[in-house]
Structures are given as C-alpha cells and as structure tokens.
C-alpha cells in the first residue's frame, strides 16, 4: 500500500507542479544563501591573507634590521623603535593570532560578522581591553545575514507548512475524503504514509540542493565527510520535527485555514517568540556586568598601582629574584614598572573577570537548559558549532589568545629584566600562535535531541483523542 500511495503522491505533486516549485524555491534559497556564505568566508580569508602578508613584510624588515644591528651597522631608527629591544618587539612586532575558517563555515554566519578573526596581542595593555570586534555596519548586524542557517531555521519550516497544511483538509475540500474514509484503511495511517512520503521528498530536495550548492560554491565542504553527514542528519531531524507537527495539526484540526493558522502559530512560537523570550529573560536574570564599570575599576586599580609603584616593584622582584640581577630599583624603567604592576593588576582584576565569566556562563547555562523548548534554538546552536561561528568558539579564541599573550610576555619579560638584546636567534624561537578548535561539535547529540522532541510530540498527541475510533471529526 505504501508503494501505491507513494506512486500517486508523486503523480499528484508533479501534476500540481509542487515538485518543481519546491525544488526551484529550495535550490534558489539555498543557492543564494550559499553564495552569501561563501562570499563571507572568502572575505575572511582575503582579510587574513592581507594581514598575513603585512605581517610577513614587517617581520622581514625587522629581521633585516636585526641582522644589520648584529653586523654592527648603523640603523636610522630612534632607540625606542629598535627591534633589538625586547619591548620594541613585544609592542611593535607582535605575533598574529588567526582564527581560520572551517570547511563548513559558510553554513552559518553565527557571531562571525561581529568579530575580527585575527589579533596581535602586545606586551602592553591588558587582555580584557583587547577589542575583537570587527568593523561592520550595525544595521547589518540588526537585520542579519541571508545565510544557509537562516534558510534552514526560518524558511524551510515555512515551506514545509505550505507543503503540508492542507494534506488532509484538501481531501475534505475536494470531497474525496468520504470515499477515502470508506476504504479499509485507517485514515490516520493513510495520512501518516502521505506525510512520510512528503517528508522524504522534501528532505531529499533540501539535501540535494545543499550538496549542489556546496559543490558549486564551496567544494572544500565536501571533504569534511563527518561534518557533512552530521549536517544532513541534522537537517533531516529538523524537517522531521516540522512534518510531525504538521501531521498532528492535520489530524486534530482538519480545516485548511485553521491548520495554516495553527502551524504558523507554532512557527512563530518556536522560531521567534521562545528564543526571543529566553534571550530577554537571560539578559534580565543574568545581565553581563557592565564593561564600563569594570573599565572604571581597572583604571582605579591602575591609579593605585601608580601610587604604590615602588612597593609593587619590591614585591615583584622578591617573587622573581632571577630578574633582579643585583640592580637597584631606581634603575628600573617604565617597562619594568609596568610588568611589575601588571601582575598586581591581574590579581586585583581576577575577581572582576571571574564575575564576568560567571554571568556569561549562567547565560549559557540558561540557554542550554531551555533550548529544548525550541528545535529552532537547538538547530541554531548546532549550525553555529558546525560552522565554528558560535560565541563559544569566539570566547575560546579569546582564551587561546590570552594564553598565547602570556606566553609572549613570558618570553620577552625576562629578556627585559636581564637586559638582554633581542637577536635573530630569538626571532626563530619566538612563540607562534596556532588556533585549535576546541569546541566539541555535538551535532549528533543535537540531531538526537530534535528527533527525541519530535518523538515526544508525536507520542504525546497520538493518544485516544487522536486515535478516535470514528472518522466523524475528520469528516465534519
């Protein structure tokens, strides 16, 4: 019987041009979104390339100057610009910390439009004040990007609604329902089979369109087999959820415009209202501490440090006797005092930063708890992880930069205190930043979550009321 329904469903859809409309609509949307996504990634790569070229150029100039200095040649640069001074290297020739895109980064813009993907932490300045934000028109951030994530999360469910809102009610409107209901098959079972067939057709079209788009716009994406497979399963699960909702609504309501209304109501609730409400509640319950407040407090601490400079230097040298080298504290200059103060600064700002991190964690925790209320949220989180564009990725990038900047300082600071010159040899030993994507891609878990939510929805509603022995309600 499934084959019979499948055959005639295909005939019905192709004759009503649905198959064609669906394919072209999905292909167009995904194609356009892929184009945008790949353009964004290309721009990111171009920016990285440009900044790398600049970096290598600067480094080669520095190397040239170092070689000249080591050869005893005169260099026409003021003292504070000489690369033989470790602090000059630390400040003027910082290393580049780059966050490269992943193979599937074009799928979801996520938070990538807000952040810069490269930064050069210097020896001067605290990490907290490092500005990772990228230059962008804020109106673009407000309206968002037309990326694949947008199509999958927002538009695909709407297409599914248009495709399924009247599967059963149309039979009623056409007048074929009485004849259908008088056949020896359960109407619910017949509808379920139709829905499954439509689900298979729709999801196949979506997947085909996506693979086609990846092939055309980002061939590299096909190399990430595991990621791609996960992505396709995730899309399948999300589509399945919406088809499950459509099935329930068709059974329970069975009136075209009421069905459409109810399904749109679900879409509004799950894709707009619930995420926006959780976000609003999260911001109200766990507002991120005011950065302004923290900046003011840091400035106060800096001021205090300036006043207690000598005591701070004493304490620093006590803790790092290897750096004292028998010098009197009066012989220490700006940089020496700066690093000594930085240590104190770090200790004093630790509680502030911890409080800050705590609030962020609480916001994230709220999100993790309540994301189950909406598959749209689960989908967004999953897609952002696949694309490595979630806030977790950027926070981790910041952490890695912070860890690296410590490395950077720890390499150069001893040279400062030991009055060592920076040489070509030191250049070759300089620590280099290597970004590592440390965020777990839990796409399989998210896929399972969506399937489970769908299952729960189906089970909770396929109760006695739904499995009504008579078809009276369907025919009314």
């Amino acid at each position: 019987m499934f084959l019979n329904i499948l055959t005639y469903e295909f005939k019905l859809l192709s004759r009503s041009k649905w198959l064609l409309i669906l394919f072209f609509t999905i292909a167009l949307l995904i194609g356009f979104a892929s184009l945008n996504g790949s353009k964004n990634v290309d721009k990111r790569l171009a920016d990285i390339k440009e900044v790398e070229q600049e970096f290598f150029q600067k480094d080669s100039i520095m190397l040239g100057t170092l070689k000249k200095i080591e050869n005893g040649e005169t260099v026409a640069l003021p003292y504070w610009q000489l690369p033989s001074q470790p602090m000059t290297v630390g400040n003027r020739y910082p290393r580049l910390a780059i966050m490269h895109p992943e193979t599937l980064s074009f799928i979801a813009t996520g938070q990538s439009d807000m952040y810069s993907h490269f930064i050069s932490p210097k020896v001067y300045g605290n990490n907290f004040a490092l500005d990772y934000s990228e230059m962008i028109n804020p109106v673009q951030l407000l309206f968002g990007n037309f990326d694949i994530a947008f199509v999958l999360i927002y538009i695909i469910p709407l297409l599914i609604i248009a495709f399924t809102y009247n599967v059963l009610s149309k039979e009623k409107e056409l007048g074929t329902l009485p004849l259908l209901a008088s056949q020896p098959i359960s109407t619910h079972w017949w509808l379920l089979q139709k829905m499954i067939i439509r689900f298979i057709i729709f999801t196949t079209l979506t997947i085909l369109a996506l693979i086609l788009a990846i092939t055309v716009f980002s061939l590299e994406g096909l190399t990430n087999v595991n990621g791609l497979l996960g992505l396709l399963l995730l899309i399948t699960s999300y589509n399945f959820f919406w088809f499950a909702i459509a099935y329930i609504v068709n059974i329970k309501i069975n009136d075209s415009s009421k069905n459409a209304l109810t399904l749109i109501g679900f879409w509004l609730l799950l894709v707009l209202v619930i995420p926006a409400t959780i976000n609003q509640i999260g911001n109200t319950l766990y507002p991120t501490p005011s950065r302004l407040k923290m900046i003011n407090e840091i400035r106060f601490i800096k001021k205090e440090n300036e006043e207690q400079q000598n005591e701070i230097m004493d304490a620093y040298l006590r803790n790092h006797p290897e750096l004292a080298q028998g010098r009197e504290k009066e012989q220490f200059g700006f940089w020496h005092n700066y690093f000594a103060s930085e240590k104190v600064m770090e200790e004093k700002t630790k509680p502030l930063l911890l409080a800050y991190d705590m609030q962020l964690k609480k916001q994230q925790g709220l999100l993790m708890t309540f994301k189950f209320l909406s598959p749209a949220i689960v989908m967004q989180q999953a897609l952002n992880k696949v694309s490595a564009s979630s806030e977790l990725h950027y926070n981790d990038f910041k952490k890695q930069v912070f860890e690296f900047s410590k490395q950077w300082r720890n390499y150069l600071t001893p040279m400062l205190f030991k009055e060592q010159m920076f040489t070509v040899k030191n250049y070759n030993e300089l620590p280099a930043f290597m970004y590592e994507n440390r965020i777990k891609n839990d796409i399989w878990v998210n896929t399972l979550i969506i399937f489970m939510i769908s299952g729960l929805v189906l089970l909770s509603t396929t109760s006695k009321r739904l499995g009504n022995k008579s078809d009276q309600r369907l025919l009314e």
Partner: protein
Amino acid sequence: MVHIIRKELKELTRDGRIKITAIISIILLVIAAITEVSNYQKESHQHEESVSKERAIWESQEAKNPHAAAHYGTYIFKPKFALSLVDGGVTNYTGNSIFVEAHNKNEASFSSATDQTSLARFGSLSINFVLLYLFPLISILIGYNSYTKEREHQTYWLLKSQGVHPTKLVIGKWLATFLPILVLTTTVFLVIGSILANISDLEMFKWVSLWTLWGLYLLYYLIITTLTILISMWSKSSGVSLVSCLLIWILFSFITPKFATNIANVKNPYPSKSEFNTRISNDKKQGLDGHNPWNEAAKKLESETLKNYGVESIDKLPFNYVGYRMQKGEEHEAKVYQKHYAALKTIATKQNDTYKQLSFISPFIALRFLSMDLANSSDNLHWKFSEAVERYRIQKQRFLNYDIKDNSKFGERGYKMTPEKFKNLPKFSFNPPTLIELLKNNTQNLFFLMLWLVLPFLGLLMTSKKI
C-alpha cells in the same frame, strides 16, 4: 458603513482565535515591557553613574604632565534616549562608550551583543519586537478572510444583492480590520509615554516624538491591513489568503532585510578593521608626528613657525614650541581620521541607501529606519555621536597641548598641570537631531511608506468594484 464595521467587529469578538491571539500578544507585551523598563532603568542609571565617575576620575587627577593626561584619556558615554525604550535599534550592536585619548580616534567599544550568547541573533522580546512582528500578524489574522469567508459562507451574493456599495463595503471592512490594532497600539504608546514621563528627564523625552512614532507604526499597520484585504479579495479560499498574507509578512519582515544585507555588502563592502587601521597608520606617517621632531613634516613646521615669528630658534618663540608641535601633530592626525572616517561613512550611507531602495519590496525596511531615527537608536545617531566625540577629543587635546604651549617653557622638564586646571576642561554634551531634522532626512522612507499605502489602497478600491 457603520453597520458593516459593527458587524465585522461583532464577528471578531466572537472569534476565539482572535481573542487567544490578542491575549497572547498582550501577555508577551507585558513581559516585554516589564523586562525592557527594568533594563532601561538599569542602563540609564549605569550611564549616569559612569558619566559622573569618569568625570570624577578626570578631575581628581593629581598634578600631571598634560600630555600624560591626554594619553591617560577619558571615556565618553552615549546618552540613553527615552524612545529607545520603544525601539532599541542598533544600540545592542554599537558600543556605548568611546575612549578619548591623544593621537587616536577610537571606535565605540564593547557592544552588548558581543557579551551575549548567539541567542541574541533571534532578537529580544522587546516592545519593538511585538510592535514590528506580532501586531501586523494580528491585522492579518483579523483581515485575511474578510472577503473569502463571505464567499465560503455564500453570504457575499446576499450582500451584493442588498445593494451595498462595494466601496462602502471595502472601506467598512478595512476600517473594522484596522480599528482593533489602532486601539491596541494607542494603548501601548500611552502606557509607554506615561512610563517615560515618570522615569525620564523631560528634556530628553518629548511627547510629540512619541506620537510621531505612533503615527508611523499605524501607517505600517494600515499598509498591512490594505494588503491583507486586497489579498482576501483576490484569493479563492481563506486558506490561500492566509498563506499569501503570511508570505508577504515574511517577505517584508525577514527575507528582504537579510537579502538587502548581502546586497549592500557586495555593492559597498566595509573594509576590515585591520585594513582601515593600516590605511590610517600609513597616512599618519606621511605627515606630522607630534612626538618626533626629526620627521619631515615636523621640520617643515618648525621652519615655517620660525619664519612667521621672525626668530632663529624655537627656544626664542613666545610659547613652548613642543606643545604647539604636539597640537599640530594632533590636528594632522585628526585630519587623517576625518578623511578615512568620511570615506567609511560614505560606505555606510551607501549601504543604508541600498536598504532603503529595497523598501519598494518591503515597507518594513522604511519603517525600521524611520523608527530607529526617531528613537535616536539608529546608525545615523551613532555617527553623529562619534563625530561629536571626535570634535570634543580635538578640543580636549587643544586644551591640554596649549597648556604646555602657553604655561611651560621650552626645555622645561617636569612641567605639570595643576589639579584645579583639569576641572576647567568643558564637559561633553551631545544633542540629538530635532524631530524636524529627522523627518527631513527620512523623506525617502516616508515617501515609500506613503506609496505602499496609496497604491494598494487604490487597488483595493478598484478591485472592490470589479468583484
């Protein structure tokens, strides 16, 4: 017509779906209002606290070299505008503070969006969210079957046979669809106005701006109402009408704005921050470096100054040349920033123009830009604020550099500005554009909105006579 309106409204009150939707919308609005007002008050308070604390830090500086003070810098905070309670605009995505220091024009830093989870990209349940997305849906819900139900219940032919003038019928239905939204919106704005009048400094809050905003939103709802009734007239069934109306709503509110983002990006891409800073840095190097007396431009300035004052060496000038040179260096740098930011602003303006041009596909875009401008939460306002801060920064640097120039001697080591003098630095003040200025700058948006109302309305009248 009054009878038609009465009958439509009666049907509406008996419709369970409308009641449910209205109740849900009101509940959401209440949640939004409570959280928004709470956040608004918090942020307002934070702003006041930050401004006074920052000034206190500045004024409580001990005697210090003015240039050291210039490097130490100060923060300028963007004021919190009353109507941002209605429309937060881009404030989530722009920083609210700018660090003002010597030699560098800084961007506003630390936007709240960078400190939030990616859930923020779904938007927030704000008053604006309900006004922009949910209220138009209510219009659609009320009006989508205004004509199709008559056909489905076979009452249309009965109506026609009574000799009801088609124009009266359509206007009656149009008004009946619009009235509930009018009442809801007016109530919302009245409540917002009362809240703002109680918590805001009255100088910042103007009822006329609030009512203008009210008028704009009503204009948008009128557009939605007109289109809904028109679609209902054209559709074969209520189901088709509803799906079509919703498609239009989605096209207006979601698809076109995002589509416009990508088009704007392609047509007029922003430079990356790194690229932008490199250009500025390169241009700065070409000119005067206030710290570096050996640089070409510095030597040129020196010879010109000596010539103007008819002296042979800088120590013979009637002022401290170091301060003078630093200020000139500052002015050169400011010009470099001006040039590049002007170019950036041109890109931003062109990008926004792309959005506005696409208002012919979506009146939502025109409304959004207008609403943000009126609420002083737009990109335009942010530019104006940044420019005002930059002017203040130059003024501040002049204040400090000229103190060195006028009150210290050339070669004098250890000159410090007295603590009292720091208090003489004028405070930063910023006035947002007036309502008239805002409306003048938005004539294109207003034009598009009017076009979106007038043309479909004419279509409505014409179609009513044909069916």
